Structure formats: C-alpha cells, structure tokens
C-alpha cells in the first residue's frame, strides 16, 4: 500500500506542527532565561535580541542553588543505589523461586503505587520522627525508595525472566552459591534492566516535590524542586528571567541523564505491557 504523495506531505507537516507545539513551552523557557526582565515584559514570545547570561550569574552566585543541588544529587543517587540493592534480590526471588504468598507479595508491591501521598507522608512522618530522620536527606531517600522500589522490582523481574536458568545451573554445579550466581551471572546480563530502574529512580527522586516539601524544615535541606517553588513564591513581583534560568539549571542534569537512559527505561516499561 503506497501512501498518496500529497498525504505524505500532509503527514510530515502535521507531525512537525504537533512536535513544535509540544516543544514550544521549553523553547520559551530557554528564551526567557537569556532575556532581561524588561525584555520578557515587552516581548513575551520573541527571540532574545540581546542575549545575556546575567540571569544565570544571579542564580548561581546570589541564591542557594549549589546547596540545593548538592542535596538533590545526594538524595537522587542514594535512592538509585538503595532501591537497586533492595529490588534486585526481590526480583530474583520472584523470577526464580516459587513460594507461599508470592501473589500476595506481587499485589502489595503493585498496589503501593496507588497509595495517596498524604496518607503515606503522615504515616512516614511518625516513623521518621521516631528515628530522628525528619528534616534529613536520608529520611527523604527512604521516602523516595518506597516509591521507586515497587516499579523497580517489577521491571527487573521482567529482565531476569529472560535470562535462561541453565546458565546459573552450570555455575551451581561448579559450586557457585545462589547469591554469587545472582551477582556474577544474572546482574551482568541484566545491565539494561539496571539502567532502566536507575533512570526511573533518578527521574522520580530528582523531580519529586511533595515529600521534599513536607519533611524538610529549612533551606539547608531543601531539594531543587522546593527551591524553585519557593523562588516563585518569594513575595511581590515574580522575576521571570532569573526564575527561568533557575528552572533550566534544575532541569538540565536530569534531562541529559534521562535522554541517555530513556532507551532502557522505555523498553523496560513496554516489555511487559506490549507482548
């Protein structure tokens, strides 16, 4: 079936317009970050005529950006490591063993995704207070891990299922324990899966706003999304130039890493659903 040339052109134009409209808000953000507040006011949509890096200088040197960036990096990378360490063995058990309560465990894991933030935060608050973890980066890491683990277990199980058990059996005959065979045989073969869950945890933790807003008490502990929200709310007229520069700086690291990892995340997400 050939498509009529006129229809082909129409298709290409339609996709171009659609994607430009989808990208336009981000383009606006980039434009604004390079304009002075006066130029933003006089030409809300135009290309910056006298591009300046002043907004970026303001954000980097006159705000607490680096403190909040450090917090975000610590929490995000701890969440990635912690949820991988907890998820990988659980995924292995789900993939390789039959045990009582396996279905119940799976249902609980999947249901966790529907738990409302407000209930979890009130409950976790009590747990964190007991251990003195309110207003700490470790406390926030634990919260993020709760939400990234269920998805991670499920994703990794999909990858482990595809690795033939025969590979492990051969090693076990040579005296390899199950733990060693997970670490030495299964995990190296499941690297794309680990990259998928890493990308997922990164996205979740870096961008998460609600818990970070609620359990942190002072600016020294805020993560970047909270820093941004406070930037918007900080009294009087909003300074769109510095705000846009800040938003761009907050987004760029996660955007770059996401673009590197999205291939794995997408194939992990669709692997189970599409079959």
């Amino acid at each position: 079936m050939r498509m009529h040339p006129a229809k082909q052109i129409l298709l290409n134009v339609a996709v171009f317009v659609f994607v430009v409209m989808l990208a336009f808000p981000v383009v606006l953000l980039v434009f604004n970050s390079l304009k002075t507040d006066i130029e933003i006011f006089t030409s809300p949509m135009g290309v910056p005529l006298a591009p300046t890096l002043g907004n970026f200088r303001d954000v980097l040197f006159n705000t607490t950006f680096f403190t909040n960036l450090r917090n975000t990096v610590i929490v995000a990378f701890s969440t990635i490591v912690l949820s991988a360490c907890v998820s990988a063995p659980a995924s292995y058990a789900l993939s390789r063993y039959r045990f009582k309560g396996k279905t119940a465990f799976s249902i609980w894991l999947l249901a966790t995704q529907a738990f409302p933030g407000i209930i979890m935060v009130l409950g976790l608050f009590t747990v964190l207070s007991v251990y003195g973890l309110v207003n700490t980066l470790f406390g926030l890491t634990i919260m993020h891990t709760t939400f990234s683990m269920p998805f991670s277990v499920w994703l990794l199980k999909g990858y482990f299922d595809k690795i033939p058990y025969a590979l492990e059996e051969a090693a076990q005959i040579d005296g390899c324990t199950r733990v060693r065979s997970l670490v030495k045989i299964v995990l190296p073969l499941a690297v794309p899966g680990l990259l998928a869950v890493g990308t997922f945890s990164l996205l979740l933790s870096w961008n998460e706003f609600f818990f970070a807003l609620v359990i942190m008490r002072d600016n020294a502990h805020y993560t970047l999304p909270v820093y941004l929200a406070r930037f918007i709310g900080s009294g009087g007229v909003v300074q769109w130039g510095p705000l846009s520069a800040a938003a761009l700086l907050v987004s760029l690291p996660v955007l770059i890493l996401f673009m590197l990892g999205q291939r794995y995340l997408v194939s992990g997400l669709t692997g189970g659903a599409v079959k």
Partner: protein
Amino acid sequence: MRSRGGSATTVRRLDQERQALPFLVPALVVLCAVSLYPLVQGISRVFYAYRALAQENVFVGWENFVLLFQDTTFFRGFSNSLVWTVTGVAGMFFLSYILATMLNSQYLRGRRFYRTVTLIPWALPGTVVSLIWRYIFLPNGPLNTFLRGIGIANPPNWLTNPQIALWTCIIANIWMGIPFVTIMLLAGLQALDRQVLEAAAIDGAGYFRAQFHVVLPSMKKVILIILTLESIWTFNMFDIVFVLTKGGPGSASVTLPLYAYQNAFMYYQAGYGAAIGLIILSVLLLVIAFYIREVLE
C-alpha cells in the same frame, strides 16, 4: 501426570521457600517499615483531631468524616478531582494516540528526532512544568499576546478566572503526560503485525474502521495499563495545581491531594487531611485493581 511423589514435591517447595527468603528480606523490611506500617499509621489518623484546648491530637471517632460530608470545599475538590483526572487522561490519550500513529508511519522523515523531542516534557520536574505554564498563561503573557494578535480583544485571565482555572491546570498536566502515553502507544503499535493492518486495508476497511476494529482491540492490554497508571498518577498529582493556582481563586481549582495537604500542613488538621486521603485511596483502589489484574495476567 505427576512424575514425582507428593512428598518429594513438598520437600522441594519448602526448600524453595527457604532459599527464596533471604532474597526477599530486604524488600520485606522496606515494605513493612515504610509502606505497610505508614499506611496503617496514616489511616489510623482519621480517627484523631487536634484540639487546641488539650494541645494534642485526641480520639474523635468518625467526627472527621461527619465534618467532611458537610464540607462544601471537600465536595468541590472531589468533583474537581474527577474532572481533572477524567478529562486530563482522556485528553492525553486522544492527543498521544494521534501523535503515536503519525510517528509510527513509515512515510515520516526524521522519526528518531521527533521521538526524542516528544520525550522532553517527561523528564522535567513538575515544578518546572508548572512555572512554564504559569508564564504562558499570564494576563499579558505569550498566550494572550498571541490571542490578541489574531483579533481576540479580551482574552480571559486564565489563572484567576474561577470558570477557567481548573482547565488551565488540566492543559499543563496533559502536556506533561503526553510523552509517556505516546511512547507506550508507539511501542504497542510497533509490536502490531503489519500484515493484519494491510489485510484490513485490502479488505476495504477505511482508516477509522481499521483503527477501531483492528488496532485498538489488539492493543487492549497496553491501553488498559496506560489508562489505569495515568489515572492513578493524575489523581494523585499535587505539583501542578500547587504551583499554578494553589487551588484558587477561592476553591475553584482545588483538588483532593491539595486540599488534604492544606488541612494537614497549613491548618494543622492532620486527621482531617488523612480522612481526605482515605477517600482518595478508596477511589484509587478500584483503579489499581484493574491495573493489577492486567499486569499479573
């Protein structure tokens, strides 16, 4: 036909369970400590209320729910949340379906480039998305400048008009959700058997008939997973309404997660906030049941 004796199977099963346990311990500890316990603890809060006189939370039985069912803001939030979720997810799905079918066409040049650009909003923090749209919707911002340019003299005030504020938030949320839905649908479309589509076309099925009778039914599973997951995420979404309108003007755009937050952390009524949370949970349990059934199948 069982080749092994019953007792041998039992031994093997017990053996399996003993071996599986160590692998499950970390996840079980995490699930119990930071999921099961907080859930129970959080839900138990619905029976408590802060009393200024006693200066502590006291047991009040069902009082929070009695108050909830007399609270017009709660009902406003409930209906807003339904509108927000249903129209938001429907909008995402509709636009993403169009985009995904076009991106799947072999006659499109630069598919990889378009696919990559489409992904961008997915990676952005909700707070960033919200502030971009807050700028676009300013009274003299880009959107209204554009509308005046094409001859609309009095474009609405998107963020402070009570008739419109919620829809403004919905548009921002749809934009943010399009990448995930598009990419999932695209993967579903790519897994379809092209021969089936071609057979339908040869049999004279037009574009829309082919979509409704061939494409949609064969993607039932992926579509159900997209719709359930996206409904849960959208219903629980907090960032966008918080940054764009704070639920205002008045309570025109308040959603349940935002109202629960306001009660628990601004008015210090944790019990009342938890009661709203329990209502959210009961709505979402229905949705998650569908999701779990699809995934475990």
